[in-house]
């Protein structure tokens, strides 16, 4: 049983009851891998935001409703989810998808046909998403920023000269890997190896042993996800190698996993210890709604997206096209939105170029901002 279900749904029900029965709730789609920690994190924050909005009276008296569909972080599944949302006329926008691969795969569905539908991803960072279509938005920086920030951190701050790269063989992994390698070698570093993986890889041992055979590396860059890292970190111990480990925001969540991730550097568009009253209020509300939990960049992104959509719906009403046009003008025709993850102002590609990336480090089960930033 999910904690979020226990807490959010009663609030939603209360909100619906408080609302006039003759006005149906406004439906917003939520797409992600909800059977995983990262997906759950996204859903929890989204539901918190919806509950807050409905408690405050909804959108002109109408409540918000989340329509949740699980894409299992699978591209084909993501397309099926996208078609289901697209075909449902009550859905005015979709928060998702969580990963770059699913968001990219679903983008043609959302952007096609006669009634295109907005998709806003909280965490899909692939550079390819910039050209996915006018109805595709995201509130996070791209892999270009993550990859170059991580390379700079490794070479400039950690003084690493040799790097080994393990990347998950999907759009996200390949994107982060490419930018990291380019930035690292541009600074004078050497890429010892770069090995693709999928989660069904029999063992990471051979990759790691080959790195050692080639003389080892100062840092191990994991351009992948939490699930991959959870296998790689134990494998390092097995082969007897202990490099500095770093990775993109895909690794977020590893701090809470059972494996020892202390000292792992993770780039992120959002860290819970980010300064600012709005963030502190959000972290507090999140902690209250989900005791013992801290929000991550996916949840914070989803939270900001829901609130931004509420502002847009106040202005436009539940109309897909008007909603898209309003969102495209955020930061230009209408003021930028100052959310818990920072300032959201979309460029013509639906990206947020104003947003920066910080390097966090895992410390005793928490991801905190690394010193010296």
């Amino acid at each position: 049983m999910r904690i979020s279900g226990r807490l959010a749904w009663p609030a939603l029900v209360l909100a619906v009851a408080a609302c006039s029965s003759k006005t149906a709730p406004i439906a917003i789609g939520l797409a992600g891998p909800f059977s995983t920690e990262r997906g759950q994190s996204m859903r929890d924050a989204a539901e918190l935001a919806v509950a807050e909005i409905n408690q405050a009276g909804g959108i002109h008296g109408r409540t918000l409703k989340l329509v949740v569909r699980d894409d299992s972080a699978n591209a084909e599944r993501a397309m099926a989810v996208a078609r289901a949302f697209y075909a449902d006329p009550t859905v005015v926008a979709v928060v998702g998808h969580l990963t770059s691969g699913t968001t990219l795969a679903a983008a043609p569905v959302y952007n096609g046909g006669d009634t295109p539908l907005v998709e806003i991803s909280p965490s899909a960072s692939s550079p390819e998403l910039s050209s996915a279509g006018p109805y595709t938005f995201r509130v996070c920086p791209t892999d270009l920023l993550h990859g170059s920030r991580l390379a700079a951190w490794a070479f400039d701050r950690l003084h690493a000269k040799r790097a080994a790269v393990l990347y998950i063989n999907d759009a996200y992994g390949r994107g982060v890997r490419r930018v990291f390698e380019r930035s690292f070698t541009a600074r004078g570093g050497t890429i010892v190896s770069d090995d693709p993986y999928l989660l069904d890889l029999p063992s990471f041992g051979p990759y790691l042993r080959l790195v050692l055979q080639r003389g080892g590396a100062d840092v191990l860059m994991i351009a992948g996800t939490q699930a991959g890292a959870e296998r790689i970190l134990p494998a390092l111990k097995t082969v007897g190698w202990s490099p500095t480990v770093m990775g993109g925001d895909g690794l977020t969540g590893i701090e809470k996993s059972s494996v020892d991730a202390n000292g792992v550097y993770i780039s992120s568009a959002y860290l819970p210890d980010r300064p600012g009253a709005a963030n502190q209020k959000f972290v507090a509300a999140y902690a209250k709604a989900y005791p013992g939990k801290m929000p991550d960049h996916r949840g914070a992104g989803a939270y900001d997206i829901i609130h931004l959509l509420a502002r847009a719906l106040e202005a436009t009403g539940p109309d897909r096209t008007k909603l898209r046009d309003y969102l495209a003008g955020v930061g230009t025709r209408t003021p930028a939105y100052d959310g818990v993850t920072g300032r959201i102002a979309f460029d013509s590609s639906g990206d947020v170029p104003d947003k920066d990336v910080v390097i966090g480090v895992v410390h005793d089960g928490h991801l905190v901002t690394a010193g010296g930033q």
Partner: protein
Amino acid sequence: MSRRLQLNTLRNRIIGGGLALLAGIVPIALIAVAALGIIRTTMRQELGVLQQVAEMTNGITSSVSDEIRAAEEYLIAPSANDQRTFRDAAASVYQYQRQLSAIPDLSPKERDAVTRIGTLQAQVEVDYHYAHVLADLGRADSAIAAAAEARTPTAELIAAVNDIGAGQAARSTATTNRLVAAATRERSIVWVVLIVSVVIGLGIGAALVRSVDQPISVLVDAAERFADGDLRPVHVGARLPAELEALSGAINRIGSRLRGIIGEVIGEGSRIAGTAGDLSAVSEELAATAGEITTAMVEISEGAERQVAGLDDGTRSMEQLGKAADSNAALARRVAQLGAEIHRVAARHRADIAAAGTTLTDVQEFVERSAAQVEELERLSLAIDDFVDLIKRISSQTNLLALNAAIEAARAGERGLGFAVVAEEVRQLADSSAQAADDVTETIRAVRAKTGEVAATMKAGRAKVGGIGQAAHGVTQALDEIVAAVGEVEQAAQRVVEEASANAKATADVVTVLQDVSGAASTHASSAQEVTAAAEEQGASTEEMAAQANELSQAAERLRALVEGFTV
């Protein structure tokens, strides 16, 4: 309203018919062009997608094949080159897969296949890369086993590419069917519009031909009638196109003018004939008078000769019988008696001759009046020339009009064929009119030639009549001289009678006187003979005039015959 704006003209009917056909043909052309445009756009779009997809799938297939070949070669004999080829080929598969994914017109099934290609390619790449790492670590057996893992996703990858190919084949068929359906639909619309246009065009053509054909044939008949000399008015009946209305009016005016002229010619001919008849009668009367004069002169001449003979006898008797004064007196009385007879005859004939002179004056007047009428006739024939010129101009303009119409008809192409026939008819009509005008010119020329002859004859007749008058005048003078001479004889004879008995001595004088008288009598005889000759000459002239009057009469008759050819 100007002729340009009237609907009831051949020109505007032809233009109207052409525009009506255009109104049918232009939509057909527009529909056809629009249909071609739609079909072309659809084809370009569909073929563009098909081509792009084909390029991508070909790229994927060849890249996958490169990738696998390099990967397998690396397993047999590791080389940096194979490794690079393997990584580059894998990278290009992703690139093709992304481009394929960016094509907006993919079906959901195709999009699934594209996504699956990405997933499977990732699997293949990882499997081979893992095998390569194992090989690099020296674990050849494990490497081969790991590489075997790649076979399943590789087969699925190729199947997914084939799925897209099959999808494209289906799309190609669907596109073809759609294009065929579109083409069929457009063709049906074009056929319907075309048939409607043809029906309307035929209707307009038939109406045009009917509206032109009937009046044209009426006008052609009228022109033929004119050519045959039947100048009665033309009745077309139906409402005509403006050009034919004008043509019909012109033909009727020509007929009307010709009828007037021919009527006048006939009248003039009749009057000339009448004048010629009068002249002939006068000539005959004159001839008769001349005959009488001749007879009288012969009598005078005989009387004078007898007088001369008597005087000669008297002279001789006076010389032989100087003493027989009684005889002389008797003779003298006889002479006086004869002189009185001569005087009486001469007086009688002088009146006859004076009557003949008056008749001649009348004849002269007739002849002069006839000459004036002939001149009037000549003037009228000049007026006919002017009208014929008018006819020729009209027919020339009509010919030009017909030529223009033929050109317009030729421009209209096949649809102008009907009217081209009409234009030819109009042109022939114009030619007939010109021919008729030429005939009239010829006729007028013949009339004028005859009139000239008559005028010449008239002039000759006038001269002859003048000659006769002079001759008659001479006769009168001669008679006067005779009367005067006879008076002197009478007086002399009286004196002889008075003095014969009283003066025998004077017998010698008497002889002398008698000789004088005898000379005078001879003079009388020769004068009488001169008169006879003059009278004979007058008779000949009169006969000549009678012949010329007859000729004039015949000319008038021929003129009448000529104009009788016209029906007015």
